[in-house]
């Protein structure tokens, strides 16, 4: 028996080391991609200029270089990483609590709600004396939380089982999508163009404010997410098994769901809908480190950031002089990834 115990200790330690290495590799990849993102852009700044501007700080001598780096590229790169991390984390939680590999942060209609909030704000322009750049994200954020509250109340009444959550989510999705269409229908062509541009999902809207808000939400949510790492892992054994391990499955789902809502709202309210990151990142994380959520959660966050920063680099490289919105890049690149996921999924009951 001691022999068996010793081998399990050794085997387990090796496995843990391999996973930690995977997490570190993802973090290193993110670092490299962030550097690549900073040096690419329509202005064609040289590496030397950038390096100088970086060390000179926001108040550097070379005003143009300082403005490009500190006002445009750095906030955009950081925003890409933060939004990607939020969506990757929210995506893994969503797939775990719904027990569905095709779920994403947007499955429950959060993106449609955010889009409706933004469209409404753009249509009515500056209301309460708020500047438009602040009012639209606020409206998108508020509407996402409203959608979340709606689903939460349904889940409280009917039990937070995946079927209820998904059906309620579909209802919310169609509800906000039709409201969004209504706003678009009523809008003038100029306003309509603005709404459509918002919906694209682009990092051009990033600013230091958005970085701070999105970063703060991620930082606040993270400890709560990580505290449930083992509970989320237990949920993968099935509801009945998790419940018999003394876990309150309904409460865990509701709690996780609110965190997903906050993370998603924080991610999309400034940048618009960026699809597929929250769907694909969890799959890469699971393939790399398995479903021990102590490792899967950080890896999904890192992979989300990696994907979005990579999309940002690609968006700047494809057409010199222009920046293609990342939402479009992730959607195009996401389709083959999604197909790969579908084709490698094992049919239920297969060994």
């Amino acid at each position, binding site marked *: 028996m001691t022999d068996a115990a010793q081998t399990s200790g050794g085997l387990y330690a090796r*496995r843990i080391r391999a996973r930690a290495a995977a997490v570190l590799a993802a973090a290193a990849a993110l670092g490299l991609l962030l550097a690549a993102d900073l040096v690419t852009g329509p202005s064609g700044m040289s590496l030397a200029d950038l390096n100088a501007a970086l060390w000179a700080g926001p108040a550097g001598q070379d005003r143009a270089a300082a403005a490009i780096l500190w006002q445009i590229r750095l906030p955009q790169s950081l925003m890409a990483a933060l939004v990607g991390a939020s969506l990757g984390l929210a995506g893994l939680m969503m797939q775990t609590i719904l027990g569905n590999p095709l779920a994403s942060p947007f499955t429950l209609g959060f993106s449609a709600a955010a889009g409706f909030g933004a469209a409404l704000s753009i249509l009515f322009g500056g209301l309460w004396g708020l500047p438009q750049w602040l009012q639209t994200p606020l409206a998108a954020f508020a509407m996402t939380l409203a959608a979340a509250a709606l689903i939460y109340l349904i889940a409280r009444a009917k039990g937070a089982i995946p079927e209820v959550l998904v059906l309620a989510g579909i209802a919310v999705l169609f509800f906000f999508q039709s409201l969004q269409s209504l706003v678009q229908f009523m809008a003038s062509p100029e306003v309509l163009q603005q709404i459509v541009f918002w919906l694209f999902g682009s990092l051009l809207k990033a600013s230091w404010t958005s970085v701070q808000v999105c970063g703060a939400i991620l930082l606040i949510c993270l400890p709560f997410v990580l505290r449930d790492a083992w509970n989320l892992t237990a949920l993968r054994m099935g509801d009945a098994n998790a419940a018999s391990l003394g876990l309150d499955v309904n409460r865990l789902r509701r709690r996780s769901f609110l965190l997903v809502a906050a993370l998603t709202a924080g991610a999309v309210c400034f940048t618009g809908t960026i699809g597929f990151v929250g769907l694909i990142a969890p799959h890469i994380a699971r393939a790399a480190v*398995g479903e021990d959520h102590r490792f899967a959660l950080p890896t999904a966050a890192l992979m989300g950031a990696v994907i979005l920063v990579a999309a940002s680099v690609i968006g700047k490289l494809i057409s010199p002089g222009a920046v293609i919105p990342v939402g479009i890049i992730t959607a195009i690149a996401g389709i083959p990834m999604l197909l790969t996921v579908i084709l490698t999924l094992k049919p239920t009951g297969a060994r």
Partner: protein
Amino acid sequence: MSLTADLPPVFKGRSQILQPMQIAVPAGQVLGVIGPNGAGKSTLLRSLAGIDVLHARWNGQPLSHRQIGYMPQAFQMNARLSVLEAVLLGKREALGWRIATADLEAAGAVLADLGLAHLEGRSMDRLSGGQQQMVLLAQRILRAPRLLVLDEPTSALDLHHQLVILRHLKSYAQDKGAVVALALHDLTLAARFCDRLLLIDKGQRLVIGDNETVLTSRQITESWNITPELLRARDGFCVIVPH
């Protein structure tokens, strides 16, 4: 020392699927719940395990969730978790960012006891239904519950592993002074490994008692609609041959 439970009626919609029932089992015994399909065995076990409301008492004191281990019927799960991790989840409340060596060793020891040491590093989604079932059992045993409630723990197992598991459960009950309640379809195995049997049909308790009292030709014919032949094995246990 004994387990008692005063189970209330259970309704599904408007129809009553389980009548109120009183159950008493002395510590150290295995209670077999038998009955035809749809008799209410799973409902009864869920109720006994206190999935929704706790009913079980130990020496008159209510048992907590932590002291009850419940294993639902087998289903194929696709978790990408190693067998060792799946068993470790039995210590869910105690797990932190670092896993204590003692917990790792305890999980490895339970696996070894059940003859599953070779599966340790395998991923749960690569196991057969029967192997998954045994891993889940190891997980429950790691929790060391006073009352272990198992819904058809042998349904996906070959004959050899059915014997391994049932022997293990019997000695678990005896060594720990615990009570094991399990649903079984194989009456011969029930006669061999259970100390007491509870026969139910249509949500109703027909009879509870020792194996001789419950497994009579008349009872078996009435409940299962078969004509059994009751033989006696060399070691004295009852063998039921269906006709």
